[in-house]
């Protein structure tokens, strides 16, 4: 049995090598070393969520009709019967109620999108906090940030396609933000929507092609580039016994690391399908079809767009005008300028840090956040800034939960958005220094007890 299997393997390897010369590459790939740390799994979780997204996405595409043509619902769901709606919305209601496993796949698709972005955001935070973005992996970082932007757009298009009431409200806001861009916003919005809001019917097809083909393809290609670039420069690692700037220490892909990663892939799929089956998400039949003249109170978008809603809500009400004419409408600040600044900071961060520290060297070893107080404090302040705006996006829910008047809340958030990053900066910086000191204190105490002045190199910085 074993001898036979070896024989088959040998013939297969020979077959492939003779025709592709791939044996050296395969040998290296199999023995590629994966340094181990829990935080390295975040990127993998995002990757496997993407796989689930593609799989469930293909399924829901088989039943979705990307058309805004009017129709009247005559299906099984009593409350909607006789209602006028678009083919798009009708097909999603039908998919949810009459297609077998349709609701499971649709809800899993939606959950996977939410988990995908959670994993990405945590992954980017990990990279920022530990300095993994430094040379020679800055290019990997830039590719990653581009993927974050595409992921957000892709998610937004996904729930906009359905044409339920929340879709329509989200699109109205997107249209207004596009309109608010100075000098060409109105022209751009008319071009994309084809006509004043809600646009011409072809707009649905435009969203559809981007959601099911262009953006997923772009993401897949960029994921490939991200991983390829990473593999050529190799994974980073935290310092430890034998782990140096010279060599990575970890488990070889085969046979040690691959089964672990496969296990993680299955675990991600397990969580997503359990969520999709057991926890309701986006029950569009409760929102109803979109009608321009309708709105619903307490509407919240998918979590990863909350920071944009927050930005729009926090901005005091003014348009920049020149004489009698508007130049910059208000929606520009929260909906366009704010995310642009956030992504600009992300793109510039490797350069900023290089300028500030003057460190242009290669770095394969990661920093523990506490060992770089300045960076950790700045990144924390940045994250807290975005987080305050994110929370402001659900200020109306906070109002309902805690009965603090909405207008008071907005004023609190307006102050916090300026104040909190500063507080967080100094607090985190102090915390890092304290952690360092307490560590060296422990080591010095031990050293004194043992009678040897042994402070490990690197910790006395």
């Amino acid at each position: 049995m074993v001898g036979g299997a070896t024989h088959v393997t040998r013939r297969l390897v020979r077959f492939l090598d003779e025709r592709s010369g791939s044996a050296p590459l395969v040998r290296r790939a199999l023995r590629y070393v994966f340094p181990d740390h829990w935080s390295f799994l975040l990127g993998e979780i995002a990757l496997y969520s993407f796989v689930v997204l593609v799989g469930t996405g293909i399924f829901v595409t088989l039943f979705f009709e990307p058309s805004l043509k009017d129709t009247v619902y005559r299906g099984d769901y009593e409350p909607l019967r006789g209602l006028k709606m678009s083919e798009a919305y009708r097909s999603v209601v039908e998919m949810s109620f009459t297609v077998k496993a349709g609701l499971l796949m649709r809800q899993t698709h939606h959950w996977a999108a939410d988990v995908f972005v959670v994993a990405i955001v945590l992954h980017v935070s990990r990279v920022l906090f530990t300095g993994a973005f430094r040379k020679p992996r800055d290019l990997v970082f830039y590719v990653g940030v581009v993927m974050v932007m595409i992921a957000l757009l892709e998610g937004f298009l996904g729930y906009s396609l359905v044409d339920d009431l929340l879709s329509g409200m989200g699109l109205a806001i997107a249209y207004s933000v596009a309109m608010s861009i100075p000098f060409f916003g109105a022209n751009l919005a008319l071009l994309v929507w084809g006509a004043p809001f809600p646009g011409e019917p072809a707009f649905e097809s435009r969203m559809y092609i981007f959601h099911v083909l262009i953006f997923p393809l772009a993401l897949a290609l960029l994921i490939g580039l991200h991983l390829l670039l990473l593999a050529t420069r190799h994974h980073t690692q935290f310092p430890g016994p034998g782990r140096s700037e010279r060599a990575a220490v970890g488990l070889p892909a085969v046979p040690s690391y691959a089964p672990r990663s496969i296990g993680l892939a299955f675990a991600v799929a397990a969580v997503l399908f359990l969520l999709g089956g057991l926890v309701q998400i986006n029950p569009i039949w409760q929102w109803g079809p979109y009608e321009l003249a309708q709105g619903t109170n307490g509407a919240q978008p998918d979590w990863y767009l909350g920071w944009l809603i927050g930005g729009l809500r926090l901005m005091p009400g003014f348009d920049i005008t020149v004489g009698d004419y508007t130049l910059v409408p208000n929606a520009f600040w929260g909906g366009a300028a704010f995310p642009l600044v956030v992504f600009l900071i992300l793109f510039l961060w490797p350069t900023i840090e290089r300028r500030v520290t003057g460190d242009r060297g290669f770095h394969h070893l990661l920093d523990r956040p506490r060992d770089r107080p300045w960076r950790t404090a700045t990144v924390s302040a940045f994250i807290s800034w975005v987080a305050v705006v994110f929370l402001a996006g659900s200020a109306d829910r906070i109002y309902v939960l805690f009965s603090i008047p909405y207008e008071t809340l907005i004023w609190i958030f307006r102050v916090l958005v300026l104040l909190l990053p500063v507080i967080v900066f100094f607090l985190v910086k102090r915390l890092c220094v304290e952690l360092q000191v307490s560590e060296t204190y422990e080591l010095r105490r031990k050293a004194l007890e043992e009678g040897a002045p042994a402070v490990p190199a690197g910790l006395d910085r």
Partner: protein
Amino acid sequence: MRRWLIAGIVLLLKRMRRRPDRKRERIFAEAPPSPVGELVVLLLLLCGTACAVGFIVVYGLDRLGSQTQLLGLALGLSFAFFAAAATVFAYRLVPTAEEQEPYPEPDEHPDDEREVVQIAEESGDRITRSRLLKLGVAGAGTALGAALVVPTLSCGPFLDVDPLRRTPWRRGVRLVDSLGRVLRADDIEEDTFYTAFPHGAPHEQIGAPLVLVRLDPSELKLPDGRKGWAPEGILAYSKICTHAGCAVALYRTPLFEPTSDKPALVCPCHYSTFDPAAGGRVLFGPAGRPLPQLPLEIGGGGTLAAAGGFSDAIGPSWWGVRRT
């Protein structure tokens, strides 16, 4: 006997010659087998298989209720068992010793780098007017790029933003509700709001929907020039928020507390708050322009109709929209 001996020696030699091949150096350190681990993996695989089969059974049996929940549970648990099996497999049944692999050097391929640069330099050796040529190539590239991009302008009007100002409201257009029934002044009560549409025009355009409220005429503080726009205190505004285009679908009205704030129209998206008594002035929130007001008149039989067009451009603001 001798034959047997020779045969035995030959066999032994053959074995000895093959031995070095068998005893080649191992890549991964030898480790004892783990029968318990194998058993656990097998059991987990079995459970996962059972769940996967369960998924197919549930799919096949229509008479089971809660299909979505059972399907999700079966598939999710199946994946969970396989995840557990893979994890036990990874920790118990394969080598788990860490290895070292060198990182690439900063100066990995100096000769190749030099050669690439040299190739680039020598490729342009023969060109004498390189700046002019570069200019020519850049110009051609830009022109071709523009030519290829221009067809996307077919998607919509690009230079003509006039459609943004169009609304179906003219003097004499009657107000109807969402079902097309004509609205009369008597239908409009205080302390609540109504959505109205133009008679005989599609409802699904951004200039169509109105929000109607009735206030005490003595409380009105409409801007100059809007005298008579609100007969009997009935006010009509565009229902589309000037901030981000959502429907202004909330009416804050003091029903019980005499101390609470005055009536206001509120957009549920970003809580822009407009004062219906003062021509749609912004009271709070991010909107930068008042809500456009539509002058009303009461016709024969008490029917409500527009007495003209909106006071301002409707819908979300854009660069160049006129302020009043």
